[in-house]
């Protein structure tokens, strides 16, 4: 609200946001963190220790062993990727963006921005000239499971959560319904399933289990569909409940699992367009199939 384009507009609140109590926990004082009075009691002191310090109760060791996929990326994939995605005499290209309102009228406050020009509703990223500094990397992997039986039996999220924890070795978080859909008996706030966001060693372990053990055992698997992708470098694939059985963690005691659910796996990359993301992911033994559509803005 403060310091933005529409600074002149009157804010209809008693205290301005900038007048609230702030504190700096690190030197030099370059940014301030807002706090409430109860944050200052002695029992909250451990929270001031940074999370990456072994002193903190939230500390989790990250580099517990050599990362095989990271080594492969650094030694082989990165230089190949630079060559493959290189375009001769290319220039920076701006993507289409949402259009903010000018702020001339007080009615512009809180009015949602207009969609980009043309028939595209979703903004696209800028495409920069490829250099060794902006090579695409895999940023994170999200594994998510929705179980529609949770609508009738809310406790059904438990096996879903345990399953995700087993195959990813990371604690999942729950997913809640965002809106009411009366025909499905769905109400806002109902638990719908679980998801887990992976990074670092957990992510590369999951990707190598997927590419070396799980996907080769699926008879119908021909490759990730080339139509998959959200247009800004994030590729997703789905596994059915039968496919999940191929994970060694599930297979080891398969009789325990009465009911398994399928899952969506989303591989988030820093590529600006899907073809670059596919090139990167195919370097990790994850093949693609089908006709590839190259966007015109590439």
């Amino acid at each position, binding site marked *: 609200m403060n310091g933005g384009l529409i600074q002149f507009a009157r804010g209809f609140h008693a205290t301005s946001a900038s007048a609230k109590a702030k504190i700096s926990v690190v030197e030099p004082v370059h940014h301030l963190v807002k706090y409430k009075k109860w944050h200052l009691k002695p029992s909250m002191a451990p929270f001031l220790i940074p999370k990456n310090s*072994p002193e903190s109760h939230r*500390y*989790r*060791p*990250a*580099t*517990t*062993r*050599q990362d*095989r996929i990271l*080594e*492969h990326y*650094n*030694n*082989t994939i990165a*230089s*190949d990727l630079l*060559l*493959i995605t*290189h*375009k*001769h*005499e290319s220039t920076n290209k701006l993507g289409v963006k949402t259009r903010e309102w000018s702020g001339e009228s007080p009615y512009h406050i809180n009015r949602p921005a207009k969609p980009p020009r043309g028939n595209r509703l979703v903004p696209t990223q800028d495409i920069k000239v490829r250099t060794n500094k902006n090579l695409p990397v895999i940023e994170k992997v999200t594994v998510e499971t929705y179980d529609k039986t949770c609508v009738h039996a809310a406790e059904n999220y438990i096996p879903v959560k*345990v399953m995700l924890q087993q195959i990813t070795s990371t604690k999942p978080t729950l997913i809640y319904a965002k809106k009411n859909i009366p025909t499905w008996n769905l109400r806002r706030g109902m638990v719908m399933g679980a998801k887990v966001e992976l990074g670092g060693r957990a992510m590369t372990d999951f990707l190598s289990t997927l590419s070396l053990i799980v996907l080769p055992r699926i008879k119908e698997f021909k*490759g990730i569909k*080339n139509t998959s992708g959200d247009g800004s470098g994030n590729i997703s694939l789905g596994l059915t409940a039968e496919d999940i059985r191929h994970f060694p963690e599930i297979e080891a*005691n398969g009789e*325990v699992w009465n009911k398994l659910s399928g899952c969506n796996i989303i591989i988030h990359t820093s590529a600006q367009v899907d*073809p670059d993301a*596919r*090139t990167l992911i*195919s370097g990790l033994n994850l*093949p*693609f*199939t*089908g*006709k*590839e559509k*190259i966007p015109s803005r590439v």
Partner: protein
Amino acid sequence: MSMNCRQIRLGQALGRISRSYYSTEATSHIPSSTTSSLSTEQGSYVAPSPEQLAESRSKIRAGLILSRTPIVTPEVKPFEESYYNYQQELERRLMWTFPKSFYFKKGSMAEHKFNLAQKKPIQSVKGVFYERGIPDIKLGRERRFKQEVVIPLAEEEGADSGSANGADIDSVARRIMPEPRITEADKSNDVASLSRKLDRTLYLIIKQQKTWKFPSFSLEGDVELLHEAAERGLRQIGGTGMNTWTVSSTPTAVIAGTGSIKEFFIKSHILAGQFSAIKSEIEDFAWLTKEELKEKFDKQYYETLEPVISEQ
């Protein structure tokens, strides 16, 4: 499959790239009146005559940097190893207690075997001095240290079925033994073998006229592209018994030699098979790492290509 699509797309891109390279080559040799007619910017592209084409193509050579990528992870240095050990100890200390009831049904034989294999923690008794501190036990776990979960081995029932000496190689119950990182080729220093230096990138170099260089070929015909020439030339000197993958049709390096000859290097990986030298074409060949290449190559040649050779 996506690679095929990409190859086709890159092939189209190369058409564009090679033409631009070609036009810069051509402009330096063709009279200025012809140069203006070659320029695409003026909207009238006139194809060069066959003589002009052959002359400019004869000044281009397709080099090949064929590599075998690392097969195993690099050797861990002692400092890294101790750091990883420290982090692992911390991770195991912070781990949740093993949920035994989830994996083993209560009262089952499997649970009994698992229980027998576990080491029991020392119980806390009043009035006893404990050297490592007073035990803090919750649900059968010593909470001050990492939990050691011992998996009962199936081999203990019948030692003969899971013998490590490879007596029954087809048995699924056999113990998995890792292969050594140092191979026979490393011991005998066989530079012609692809199974040497498993944790390093190896590059193919050949000896022609008593000089060690990366393979290099001239372009054939009127339409052969750089990467096509490199792939064809490799089969001519090394036979057809190998699978290679050309990374891109874009060259990775260039050497401007004497007499306005330019050598463009195409990058490729060997995926399967062997390079079997054809004696009439080359004197010798070797698969070498970066440090070994430095010894074999001419100093200037090495320094030009050094940035595109992998450290690891």
